[in-house]
């Protein structure tokens, strides 16, 4: 009897801890995006170093708060389209890595310009069973039209991951697709990797502009 009691105790402990560990994975996609964006904006607004354009600080913020929720491999494979299948695993790895770096630089530039913007989320249009959803939001800026900012997320074993972003009505993957195809057509997948690497090197040497 005692053994059974112990077994039940251990089992329920196990269930409890696994439920705890799985909590982030079960987070709804819109709740996830809301949480990340609130967290990032809050940090960026309150960090003087980031506002002053300290590149390392911004990159740290992106690395720690955003990257864990982005599926760069998927994003890159979509942007490369049919060429992705022709690439060797090594090329795929390099391409994802360079594309990732480029996007981090771009995103970091955007982050250091955050001032008084507020983000407004629209109701999520998805069935609970959907494995891919679109989270729609808009950034209200001081002047001019609000900026559309939508995210597409896919359910993975490690929780929801962002694999495409829409800014002002244009999807990131679709926008890079043409450039990728042209570059690959000109000088192959290695050529594209090289072009991305060169661009990244240039960006790395250039300091972020401080927000005015």
């Amino acid at each position, binding site marked *: 009897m005692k053994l059974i009691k112990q077994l039940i105790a251990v089992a329920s402990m196990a269930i409890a801890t696994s439920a705890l560990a799985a909590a982030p*994975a079960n987070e709804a996609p819109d709740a996830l995006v809301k949480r990340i964006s609130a967290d990032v904006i809050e940090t960026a607004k309150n960090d003087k170093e980031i506002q002053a354009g300290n590149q390392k600080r911004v990159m740290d913020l992106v690395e720690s708060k955003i990257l864990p929720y982005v599926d760069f491999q*998927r994003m890159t*494979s*979509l942007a490369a*389209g*049919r060429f*992705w*299948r022709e690439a060797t695993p090594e090329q795929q790895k390099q391409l994802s890595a360079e594309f990732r770096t*480029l*996007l981090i*630089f*771009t995103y970091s*530039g*955007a982050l250091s*310009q955050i001032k008084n913007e507020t983000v407004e989320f629209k*109701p999520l*249009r*998805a*069935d609970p*069973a*959907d*494995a*891919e*959803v*679109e989270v*729609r939001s808009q950034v209200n800026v*001081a*002047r*001019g*039209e609000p900026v*559309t900012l939508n995210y*597409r997320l*896919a*359910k*993975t*074993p490690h929780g929801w991951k962002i694999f495409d972003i829409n800014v*002002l*009505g*244009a*999807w990131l*993957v*679709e*926008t*890079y*697709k*043409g*450039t990728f195809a*042209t*570059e690959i057509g000109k000088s192959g997948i290695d050529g594209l990797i090289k*072009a*991305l690497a060169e*661009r990244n090197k240039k*960006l790395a040497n250039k300091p972020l*502009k401080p927000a*005015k």
Partner: protein
Amino acid sequence: MTAITLVRSATLVVLAAALGGCATGGQKDPYEKFNRKMFEFNDAVDRNALKPAATVYKQVLPSFVQTGVNNFFGNLADMWSTANNLMQGKGEAGMSDFTRVMMNSTFGLAGLIDVASEAGLKKHNEDFGQTLGYWGVKSGPYLMLPLLGPSTMRDTVALPLDIYADPWGYGVNANVQVAGTILRVVDQRAVILDASNLMEEAALDRYEFIRDGFLQSRQNKVFDGETSRKEAIKAAKADAADAAEPTAASIKAAYADDEAAPAVPAADPAADPSKPPVPAKTAAKAPVLSSEPASK
């Protein structure tokens, strides 16, 4: 009206003549050669005149003045936007834009203060190119217009009407009109200053990046963020009833050659982490998705 209309219609004529001569490039951009030249020209103008002017404008003028300028011209644009909303049968948006003009022109001191936005009336920004698109006119090839920037064949055809219907210039003398137009253009440029700086960094080939971004963004505006007119109407209705449809199907349709997409009936994706990635063979299924009437 006259001075600017003249310049603009002259450019259109030149443009039409120039386009007659060159038809190369891909499907969506048959005039790429011409467009790239225009892009270089516009870029030179931007680098040497417009961008420096916009930068100074943004740094020197107090923020409330910039907001006032933006609101003033925005209010004028809302009048034509009202008409376009109504032409597209979007009664509610049309009424909202009409009320915006009424409120902002009076309480908002001739449009300088955007009181309507404070009151929760959103701006819609419809033009005749969008109206034509909503009516079913295809965008046609991409066109880079001199000074005016990225456009499409459809929007270029619609442009004269947009210019004609623009209230700015009626009842003021030519000098004021030109000065006002310059102010308006500089202000518009200042608004997108940060975004354009960012774009320069993100793009491998800026021409292509801007083209592919613009065409999507424009299409998105025509259908108000949806993929087709039917979807736009459905979404507007559903928004009112608070029961919009899931977007999963349109997400699937957006990536024709996606291999990693989860299986259609997503039974329990969390349950099969051990399953290897979808093999390349299943990519043969992809054409099913793209066989839907493409919006391009």
